[in-house]
């Protein structure tokens, strides 16, 4: 998979939130985006997933425009906002529900996903009873569970303890080995330093270039 962000700009209420962003990203790599709060990291991920539309520019995956063509977005795994989990359902039921959107059903597989992320013992607990870290793990699980080619993770280790961070790091390394294209935004320099092949600095909606952490 080859993802190109071409001259992408986005203006919201007169403010340039993304300013002429150009990127070329290839699968089998982990790309990190580092910047302060409000620098444009999350906005860039919203742009790549067409949750926002550009003022100018385009997003192209394997030669297909995400803006103008009917691109199949289900190939993108996304951890960005709350993915509409039902608080009265268990972690297992919530993942099954999302899995069923495309008429897929495999309880064994869902159990394995939950175990891999470290939620095996709590898979039958209601989502509203989950701790912050458990909720974050379930969000990560939904982003990677369907063998998506492009995985976008915004602050994946937020609220996680050391052991859980290790699990998430291992999952990301495994995804890289499976030749996925992985994008990570984080404040956590360790996350980016340990996982990423390239790290981009973002400031005021502009890519300021590659950095070493």
């Amino acid at each position, binding site marked *: 998979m080859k993802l190109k962000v071409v001259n992408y700009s986005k203006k*919201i*209420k007169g*403010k340039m*939130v993304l300013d002429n962003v150009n990127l070329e990203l290839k699968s089998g790599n982990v790309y990190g985006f580092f910047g302060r*709060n*409000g620098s*444009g*990291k*999350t*906005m860039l991920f*919203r742009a790549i*997933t*067409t*949750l*926002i*539309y550009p003022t100018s520019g385009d997003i192209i995956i394997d030669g297909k425009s995400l803006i103008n063509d*009917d*691109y*199949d*977005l*289900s190939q*993108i*795994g*996304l951890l*960005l*906002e*709350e*993915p*509409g989990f*039902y608080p*009265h*359902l268990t972690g297992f*039921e919530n993942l*099954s*529900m*999302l899995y*069923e*959107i*495309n008429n897929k059903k495999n309880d064994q597989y869902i159990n394995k996903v939950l175990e891999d992320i470290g939620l095996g013992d709590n898979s039958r607990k209601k989502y509203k009873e989950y701790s912050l870290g458990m909720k974050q793990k379930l969000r990560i699980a939904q982003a990677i569970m*369907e063998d998506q080619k492009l995985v976008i993770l915004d602050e994946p280790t937020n609220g996680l303890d050391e052991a859980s961070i290790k699990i998430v790091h291992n999952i990301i390394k495994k995804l890289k080995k499976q030749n996925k294209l992985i994008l990570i935004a984080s404040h956590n320099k360790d996350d980016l330093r340990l996982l990423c092949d390239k790290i981009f600095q973002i400031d005021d909606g502009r890519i300021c270039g590659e950095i070493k952490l």
Partner: protein
Amino acid sequence: MMYMKKIDLKKIIIYILVIVIICFLKKNYIYAISTGEASTLVKDILIYWGDNQVVNIIWFLPIIFEIFVISKKYFYKLNSFDLRSKNRKKYIKKVLISFILESFCFILALELSQLFIINFFIPNSLNINIDDLIFILKYVIENIFLIFEIMLVALLFKKLMYSIIFFLILNFIILISSMNLSLISTQIYIPFVNIYFGSGNFLVTILIILIGILIIKKIYLNYDIGGME
């Protein structure tokens, strides 16, 4: 099976309780406003607008209730697009079909349960005929239309609460103006309000819903989900 799990039992119990309270309040006034004829009782139970504003509000409570339940859910859905739905064109189609079906079932259940609960409070008071059934269906469609309009405006405003308040105030103003001040001709077709006069042509409502679907599709497909960081 999974769809059943989505239903929160606690919510259902609260909804039933709300309906029973509304019916109890309506029951206290139904004799005062009704002519006593069984054929008009169905209409009187669902629709009433008179001089006493407190009584008017009681009759508006179920409408406000369904507006909050349905519009909140679907406005949230439209604002939490899941990438698994492949693209927004497919997603909007799914959401709109689900909105029409669910709001139809919910409003119909709400209207019928009011009729049956009041019939329980006042035994054997109802005698539902074919005209009543047509009236109930028309009323359900008008209510779907009202919620649909609110969602449409909410997508423009990007704020659901403003849109609900805006629409309720607008409908109250039109209703009061057309009934008391004769400012608005009853010849003009005003969906929802017109049903209160009992002469609404619901086919016009269906036509407007279809035009609305086209507009909502156009707005939604170019809509930014998620705001500033």
